[in-house]
Structures are given as structure tokens and as C-alpha cells.
């Protein structure tokens, strides 16, 4: 029972981070129909930028976070404007490949400036443990779940309530109709990338706090694919469900069966979902016409 509870907490916190990473991915896909293979590298850049501000420049936590957000905004805008916008309307292969190229460049930049060694970063979240139903679980994992929940809630409130959020939903629904209503599709595209970079920053910083500031953070990005396929490529609630399911599944499999199998089980789920229900749990089914 103890194992079960701690596995559940680990799974939920992993899942919460996956949901955050997947949120950015879904935002980009929803608004611009781009599959962003560089999502993991966005996490990586976010984590390293926060590390630079917090540890290297010795800024207080709040300022360091603001610095990270600033860099994320610049990154999002620059990437959208100079890399993705020229490719609007191009074939899916080109768009996928350009994000793959982007991921190689971002990873290489981090490697050039910071090397491959693991960087020391003092813990941001409290490191103690807490008793939950008889099991000892680390406090920081619980806090991560809380933060992720707040951020996800804030994002969905943004989409439901704010002007820009509604504009984004309109563009996702029908670009041409949105254009005729006077919505700037270009601005929405930029906004989608910026928000994705910011959610990736949050996920990256939290992930670095749970593990370490290192290149491996980028690998976390690949796990986004099973999550978004499970939840539906264009569904924000889907990322939460998908993230939590994949996070829990990985922890249970690695705890009760085989840690190696845990790495591949999300992909097996992915294939199964693709065969049975390609548009995921909450995804929108599209009818194709010639």
C-alpha cells in the first residue's frame, strides 16, 4: 500500500509536468497546425535560463523567474517569426523537419554555452517529506502537482475569459472566419508560441528542481507525444488527462514490473490509441475531403 501511494504521488507529479509540457505543444498545434518536435528543447532552454539567472547571476527567485519568462517570450516570438512563419502552407514534412532542426540548434546552443556536465542548483521547493496515508512522500512532488494544477487552471481561464484567449480559440476553430472578424492571425500565432515557451519554462524549471539541470531534460519532450495522442492533439483538457494517465502508468509499470518497460509502455499505448481512436479521447474528429 505504501509503495502504491508513493508511486501514485510520483506518477501524478510526473504527469503534471507532462501535462504542462504537453499544454505548450497543444497550444501550438491548435493555433498553427504545427507539430513542435522542439518542445523538449524549450523545457531545456527554460531550465537553463532560470539557472543562469538564479545561480549564475544570483538574482532573487522572483526576478529569476521573470528573467526566464522574458527569455521565453523572446524565444517564442523569434522562432515563430523567423522559422515557422515562412513555412505556413508548406507540407507537413517540411514543418516537422524545421522543428527538428530547431531542436538540434537549441540543444547545441545549450551545449556550447553550458557544456554537458550536470549543473548544481539549490532546491527551490522545500525538500522535506510528509506522511500521506501512512506512506512517506517527498513534499516537493506534492507542490509540483499543486503548481501545475494552478498553471493549467490559469491557462484554461485565459482561454475562456480573456480577449486574446477567445481570439486564439477562434483562430483554432476557423482561420479564415477569424480573419474576417478582424482577428490578427499573425499575432495569435506569435502568442501561441510565446505561451508554449512559457509553459515549457515552468515545466522545465520544476523538472530541473525534481531531478537536475542537465541535457537530459530535453528527452522529457519526447514523452509529450504519447500524452497528446492519448488526450487528443487539439484538446487542452486532454493534456491533463493524458499527462496524468501516462505519468501514473509509467510509475506503476516501473514500480511493479520493469523500469525498462516503463520507458516504452507510453509508446505501446500510443500505437494502441492510434489504431483504435486516432483522434484521442478529447480530440476533434475531422472529415477529409478531396
Amino acid at each position, binding site marked *: 500500500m505504501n509503495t502504491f501511494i508513493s508511486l501514485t504521488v510520483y506518477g501524478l507529479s510526473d504527469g503534471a509536468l507532462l501535462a504542462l509540457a504537453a499544454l505548450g505543444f497543444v497550444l501550438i*498545434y491548435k493555433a498553427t497546425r504545427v*507539430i513542435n518536435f522542439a518542445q523538449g528543447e524549450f523545457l531545456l532552454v527554460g531550465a537553463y535560463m532560470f539557472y543562469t539567472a538564479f545561480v549564475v547571476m544570483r538574482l532573487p527567485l522572483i526576478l529569476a523567474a521573470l528573467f526566464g519568462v522574458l527569455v521565453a517570450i523572446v524565444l517564442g516570438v523569434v522562432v515563430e517569426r523567423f*522559422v515557422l512563419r*515562412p*513555412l505556413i502552407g*508548406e507540407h*507537413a*514534412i*517540411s514543418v*516537422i*523537419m*524545421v522543428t*527538428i*532542426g*530547431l*531542436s*538540434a*540548434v*537549441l*540543444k*547545441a*546552443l545549450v*551545449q*556550447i554555452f553550458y557544456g554537458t556536465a550536470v549543473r548544481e542548483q539549490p532546491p527551490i521547493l522545500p525538500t522535506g517529506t510528509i506522511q500521506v496515508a501512512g506512506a512517506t512522500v517527498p513534499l516537493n512532488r506534492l507542490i509540483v502537482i499543486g503548481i501545475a494544477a494552478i498553471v493549467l487552471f490559469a491557462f484554461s481561464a485565459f482561454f475562456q475569459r480573456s480577449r486574446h484567449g477567445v481570439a486564439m480559440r477562434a483562430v483554432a476553430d476557423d482561420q479564415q472566419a477569424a480573419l474576417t472578424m478582424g482577428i490578427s492571425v499573425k499575432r495569435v500565432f506569435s502568442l501561441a508560441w510565446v505561451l508554449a515557451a512559457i509553459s515549457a519554462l515552468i515545466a522545465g524549471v520544476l523538472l530541473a528542481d525534481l531531478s537536475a539541470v542537465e541535457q537530459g531534460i530535453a528527452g522529457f519532450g*519526447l514523452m509529450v*507525444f*504519447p500524452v497528446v*495522442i492519448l488526450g487528443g*492533439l487539439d484538446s487542452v483538457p486532454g493534456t491533463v488527462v493524458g499527462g496524468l494517465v501516462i505519468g501514473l502508468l509509467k510509475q506503476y509499470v516501473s514500480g511493479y514490473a520493469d523500469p*525498462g*518497460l516503463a*520507458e*516504452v509502455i507510453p*509508446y*505501446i499505448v*500510443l*500505437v494502441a490509441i*492510434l*489504431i483504435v481512436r*486516432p483522434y484521442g479521447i478529447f480530440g476533434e474528429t475531422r472529415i*477529409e*475531403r*478531396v
Partner: protein
Amino acid sequence: MATATGIHHRTYRSELRLRHTKAEYFRLALMLVLLLSAPYVLDKYWLGITNVILISVIGAVGLNILVGFTGQISLGQGGFLAVGAFTSAIISDRAGVPVPISILIAVVMTAAVGAFFGLPALRLKGLYLAIATLASQEIIMFVVRRWEWLTEGKGFLEVKRLQVGGFEIERRMFEVQWYWILLALAILAVVVARNLFRTTLGRSFMAVRDQDIAAEAIGVNITRAKVTAFAVSSGFVGLAGALTAHYTETVTWERFTLDVSVLYLAMIIVGGLGSIAGAVYGAIFMGLLPALLTELVDVLGSSMPALSDQLPALKNAVFGIAIIVFLLVEPRGLDRIWTRMKDYIRFWPFRY
């Protein structure tokens, strides 16, 4: 035929020919001379790089059949290479089957695995298919890493030096002898692929790429075309994988990761999607890029010692930048650039 205003065909026979102009025959001859003289001109290091490029030519041609000609995105290239490599290595070393037959079995085996993982393509397209093939890559990698029977628990396979009948590769002449073998196979692969797209099957692949629903309406069996495309493409990739195994004489899973899939995709993007020549150019470009970069860093290294520590990161950066620049500036790749250069010369002094 060829005039200053372009190439005009008067008969179907002439249009179907692979080569139309004298200049094309001249370039073919020039290329043959270059290829035949290469082992006498290049030293061992560069010949080794050439051999790796020849193998990747086969793999890139295979991938281009699937991605460039049939329009099915695949991120599973690394996995299929692994299937070819492990199959041939195990069959030849443990069962004692002669290498040519083991390579043949590897090709068939990879084609079968490719067709199996191509099944999702029947329902999925574009982005979804890319993700499905990503999963196939990860699943194959998992099997290769975890299935101890494959490597007898060592984690890697050692492959005996290539031996066919009485002929064995000599240590001293290793690169040169491999060069001839790989050159012959690469040429064979290119010719087969080139001719594939002059047949009904090949044309049906292209019809599926251009508009699959319309293709079905005019009587192309999409199911068959897609699965065959996966099988044929994987067959080429399996050959490349098997050759990698016998050429490098060790098989480890590290050689077949997702990065390799991405590298091959980069080759066909840079070379030109939907062009056999493009796949060859791309393989050469991506094969030479790291080697040339190493040379450059060596030259600059004396004045900037920090540069050589950054070499691996620089390689990645240049790789990524090459992909992005090609996609933004010339999405149809080196093949298109080459065509434009030829046109420029042919029409000179006119613009077109």
C-alpha cells in the same frame, strides 16, 4: 531533342529514356571516371567516409521512396536499420549462412517489419503518421536493447570479417575492397529505385502522395500502394542496415537511435524530396558535413583552442542550421539547385 529552348520529345520512346542529352551522357562518364579513380586517389580516412556515405545513399534512397515519393512520413528509419543489421549479423554468424544470403534475408525481414509498422498508415496521415512511426522506432529500440537473446547478454554483437566463398576482406585493403562492394550495391539500389518510378507500382506511389482520395477514385489500390511502399522502402533500409553491420563489424543499438532517423530525414530534405538523385546528393552532403567541419576546426584550432572542445556541439548546431536554412531557402533541396544551375547555363545569356 535538346535545343536552346529546352528538351522536346517527338516520340514516347525518347521521353521514357533515362538520359536525353549528350551532356547527360558526358556527366555520367565523368562521374564513372571519378568513382572508378576514387580508391586510388583517396587515403584510408576519406575512403572510410566515402564508404559510410555509400551505405547512407542506399538508406536515403529507401527513405525517399517512402517519404518523398509516397508522402508517408517516417521517423522509424533507425529502427528499420537496426532490424536489417541485427538480422544479417545473427543469421550469418550464428547459423553460418553465407553473407550474401543473410543480407538477402535481412532485406526481406526488414521489408516485412516495415510493412507491419506501415499498417497504421492505412488510417493515419501526416502528423499522426509521423508520431506512429516515432513509436515504432522506440518499440524496435526497446526490443533490441532488452531482448538478451539478440546479443547474448553482451549488449552488442561482433560480426566476423566479410567472407564470401573463398574471398575474404584483407586487413590491409579493407577500405578499398569494401569500396567496390558498396559502390556496386549503391549503384544497384539507385538504378532499381530510379526504374521503380517508371513502373505502374511506382506511379501509384506518387498518385497516393499527390492526392490519395483522387488516386483511389481512378483505381489505385491505396492499401496496397501504402503497404508496398513501406515494404520496398524498408527493404532498401534493411540492406543499408545489414551492410552497416558487416562493414563496421560491430552492431550496437546506439547506432540506430532516433537521431539516425532524423539524420536520414535531413538527408532527403537537404537533397530534395521525391528525387532519387536528391537522396544521393543529400547523403553525400550530410556525410561530408561533419568531416569537413572537423577539418575546419583543425585548421582554426591552432588559433582558437576552445573551438575543438566545442566540436560535437558545433556539429549539432551546423546540422540543425543546415536543415532550417534549406527548408526556408530552397525546400526542394540540392536537386533543385542543381537543376537551376543547369538551366542557367543552358539559357545563358537569357534569364529563361
